């Protein structure tokens, strides 16, 4: 079936080339049948790539090691669920996932706009097919997911143990959905400029896709942070790693666009800014893929030799040059229709929010790419660490939280000082009350965290007041009970109130980040069974070691051969809080030089974190057992020389027993972090708000609302 998979890719490339030509010919010559044929090429591309993806997925599930990609990233010992997800752990598979998701989202976008914006959509079709063609060409010429090997290996290398976690199964498709969705507004933005149709219509057409991109990227980023925190042995959720930053940058510019597009829709302002944000977001999404897939992160010099580096640089260069040329050449059409009425208006708050978001993106861009550029120029490795990022991003984040509280309480167009004073009373009161409460509680050692808590209270006050006043107004108009009035209010103004809920979610998330990073207690030390240590207010006692062998008994079902851990007894003020069992999983390697027993545990060891999580704090533990003691090494050496491969597990059983009998001191990483749970809760609130804002109004309601608005507008004739 590998041949059929490759045939699918070649066919996909032909379809892309045809579709680009047909779309452009159709729109330039006015022959709509060709544009229509071009649009259908995107549907065909989606069908072909779905077939190709299924072929590869089946090969992974059947452990068909004739496929290089399967042999390199999967094995029979890899649990079935993770075999299914192993497709996108390989370079080739991830490119196929990218192209497939892009074709599916593009098909949806073109289907929904099939009766509108036909000239813009025709150009957008050509651009989407250009992206599709680029990724398919990479697979056809450089990284074929259907490449095979002969003779067929008896066993595969296996999935990287670090990726054998549920969050890591969902994280890449979410992130890639976000990246690919970012290319849809990009394609329509370019299409609008090419078709010289820069009114609010194209913005309206892509609004939901921009929102969906933002949502998927956000979910992907959160899942990545959750994986980092709950699976990796360092206890952090964000390390300003280049891969993390790559996904955050388009999310930030996407957030800015979601705010500023409202100004263009309502006032015909910020056309240059909006189209630039859309183009920047699309380009940053491709740059994110480039960072991860080009090999540039291994070394700046590796990417030139890496097959994908140069094509990616060419694509990004074309996107940047094309974007700048089109924006500059269409600048007359992008002139604003209105001016800002007042600096005390929601438009002004949105402008401020845009400036901060873009500044944040710039800082992260600089911190991520500057070391790479510097290394390319000077030849010396350079890096920028978390303190550098924190120095600039923390103040900007504080301003952002403040603005997310200001925006909801001021009106569009213009607000009066008297109204502003009245509207800010409750939010400022909430902030001051929080300051007082924290001072009284003695939580004043970290000024930046204190400011953040007060600003978050300001946001809760401002959004809470909005919900209260909106519900009250709805009750006064419709005479409904409060819960019904609240529901009706949100249902009829999904974007507004969904957005407010997102603001709450972001404020909650920042509270979690500030509390857990500022007030964390950490301890890294070596303990033997029976020994205790204190971490913050908690006492941790190492009760006894634990050991499990064979994948069958692996508690986390990740396919490790051996798992060594510890039972930790956690108390606070003498009261039992939890008993935790952190462990380290040892996986088989494919290196025969490690011997029959040694190769069973010779792969990359992975920490299995154990924690007691609650709303107020998390007690987080990880262990690094010492299996390099002379006694344990001797068991492996003797096993290697005496046990054949089929009995090698006996050697591992001896090793486990020896570890339990005479446990050496183990290295522990212990953390007590307050309010970490609120990071994930904030993310979920934001996700809920995003879904409310994204959810389309029922058509009946929309018709009724439109009819009522029309009636009111016509009635207004008398007033004008």
């Amino acid at each position, binding site marked *: *079936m590998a*041949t059929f998979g490759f*045939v*699918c890719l070649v*066919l996909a490339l032909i*379809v892309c080339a*045809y*579709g680009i030509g*047909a779309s452009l010919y159709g*729109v330039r010559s*006015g*022959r*709509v*049948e060709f544009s*229509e*044929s071009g649009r*259908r*090429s995107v*549907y*065909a591309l989606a*069908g*072909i790539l779905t*077939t190709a993806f299924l072929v590869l997925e089946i090969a992974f599930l059947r452990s068909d090691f004739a496929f290089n990609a399967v042999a390199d990233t999967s094995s029979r010992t890899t649990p079935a669920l993770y075999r299914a997800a192993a497709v996108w752990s390989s370079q080739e598979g991830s490119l196929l996932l990218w192209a497939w998701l892009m074709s599916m989202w593009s098909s949806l976008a073109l289907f929904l706009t099939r*009766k*509108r914006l*036909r*000239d813009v959509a025709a150009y957008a079709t050509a651009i989407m097919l250009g992206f599709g063609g680029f990724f398919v060409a990479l697979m056809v010429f450089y990284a074929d997911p259907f490449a095979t090997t002969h003779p067929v290996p008896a066993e595969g290398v296996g999935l990287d143990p670090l990726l054998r976690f549920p969050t890591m199964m969902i994280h890449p498709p979410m992130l890639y959905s976000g990246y690919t969705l970012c290319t849809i507004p990009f394609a329509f933005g370019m299409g609008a400029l090419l078709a010289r*149709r820069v*009114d*609010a*219509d194209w913005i309206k057409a892509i609004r939901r896709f921009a929102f969906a991109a933002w949502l998927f990227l956000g979910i992907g980023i959160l899942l990545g942070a959750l994986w980092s925190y709950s699976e990796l042995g360092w206890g952090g959720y964000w390390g300003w790693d280049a891969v993390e930053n790559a996904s955050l940058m388009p999310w930030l510019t996407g957030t800015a666009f979601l705010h500023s597009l409202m100004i263009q*829709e*309502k006032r015909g302002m910020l056309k240059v800014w909006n189209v630039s944000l859309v183009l920047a977001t699309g380009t940053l999404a491709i740059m994110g893929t480039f960072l991860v897939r080009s090999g540039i992160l291994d070394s700046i010099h590796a990417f030139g030799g890496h097959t994908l580096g140069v094509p990616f640089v060419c694509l990004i260069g074309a996107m940047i040059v094309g974007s700048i040329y089109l924006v500059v050449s269409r600048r007359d059409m992008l002139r604003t229709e209105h001016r800002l009425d007042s600096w005390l208006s929601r438009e002004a708050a949105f402008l401020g929010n845009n400036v901060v978001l873009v500044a944040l993106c710039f800082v992260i861009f600089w911190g991520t790419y500057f070391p790479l550029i510097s290394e390319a120029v000077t030849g010396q490795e350079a890096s920028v660490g978390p303190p550098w990022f924190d120095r600039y991003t923390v103040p900007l984040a504080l301003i952002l939280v403040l603005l997310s509280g200001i925006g909801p*309480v*001021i*009106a*569009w*167009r*213009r*607000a*009066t000082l*008297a*109204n502003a004073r009245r509207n800010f009373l409750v939010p400022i009161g909430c902030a001051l009350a929080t300051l007082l409460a924290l001072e009284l509680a003695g939580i004043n050692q970290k000024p930046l965290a204190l400011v953040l808590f007060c600003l978050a209270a300001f946001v809760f006050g401002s959004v809470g007041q*909005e919900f209260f*006043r*909106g519900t009250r*107004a709805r009750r*006064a108009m419709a005479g409904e009970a409060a819960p019904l009035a609240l529901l009706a209010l949100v249902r009829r*103004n999904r974007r*507004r109130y969904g957005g407010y809920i997102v603001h709450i979610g972001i404020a909650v998330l920042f509270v979690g980040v500030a509390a857990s990073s500022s007030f964390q207690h950490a301890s890294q030390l070596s303990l033997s069974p029976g020994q205790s240590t204190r971490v913050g207010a908690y006492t941790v006692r190492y009760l006894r070691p634990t050991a499990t062998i064979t994948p069958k008994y692996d508690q986390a079902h990740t396919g490790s051969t051996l798992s060594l851990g510890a039972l930790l007894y956690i108390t606070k003020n003498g009261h039992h809080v939890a008993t935790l069992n952190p462990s380290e999983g040892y996986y088989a390697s494919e290196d025969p030089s490690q011997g029959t027993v040694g190769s069973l545990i010779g792969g990359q060891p992975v920490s299995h974190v154990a924690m007691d999580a609650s709303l107020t704090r998390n007690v987080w533990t990880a262990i690094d057992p010492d299996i390099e003691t002379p006694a344990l090494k001797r068991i492996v050496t003797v096993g290697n020389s005496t046990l054949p491969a089929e009995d090698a597990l006996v050697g591992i059983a001896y090793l486990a027993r020896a570890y339990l009998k005479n446990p050496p001191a183990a290295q522990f990483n212990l953390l007590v972090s307050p309010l970490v749970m609120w990071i994930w809760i904030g993310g979920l609130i934001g996700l809920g708000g995003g879904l409310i804002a994204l959810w389309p109004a029922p058509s009946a309601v929309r018709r009724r*609302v439109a009819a009522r*608005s*029309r009636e*009111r*507008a*016509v009635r*207004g*004739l008398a*007033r*004008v």
Partner: protein
Amino acid sequence: MGFLIAILTLLLVGLVVALVSAPLRRAREPRAPIPQDGESGGAPDAPFAPDSRLRDELEAAREAKYREIRDAELDFRTGKLSSEDYRAIDADLRAEAIEILNQLERLRTRDA
């Protein structure tokens, strides 16, 4: 296996060609009455014509204006606008909405 792959390939190519070429084949058939942009219809319309674009733009502007009127009303009812400001803004918005409606009406009259 080779035979199966050949059959599958032919099937896939056939489906793709049928899907992609359908609009071109339809265009060669006798034409049905031209539908308006925004309506469904088999025969090609004049979607790239300036009138069609202008109508799309005006309809988008009309929807945005209705939303702006609703938002201003909600801002007023939630205490963010004084009654004087609201009356002025509302009057401006309604005037702008009526201007858009008039333009749309003129376009429809001309089409008729």
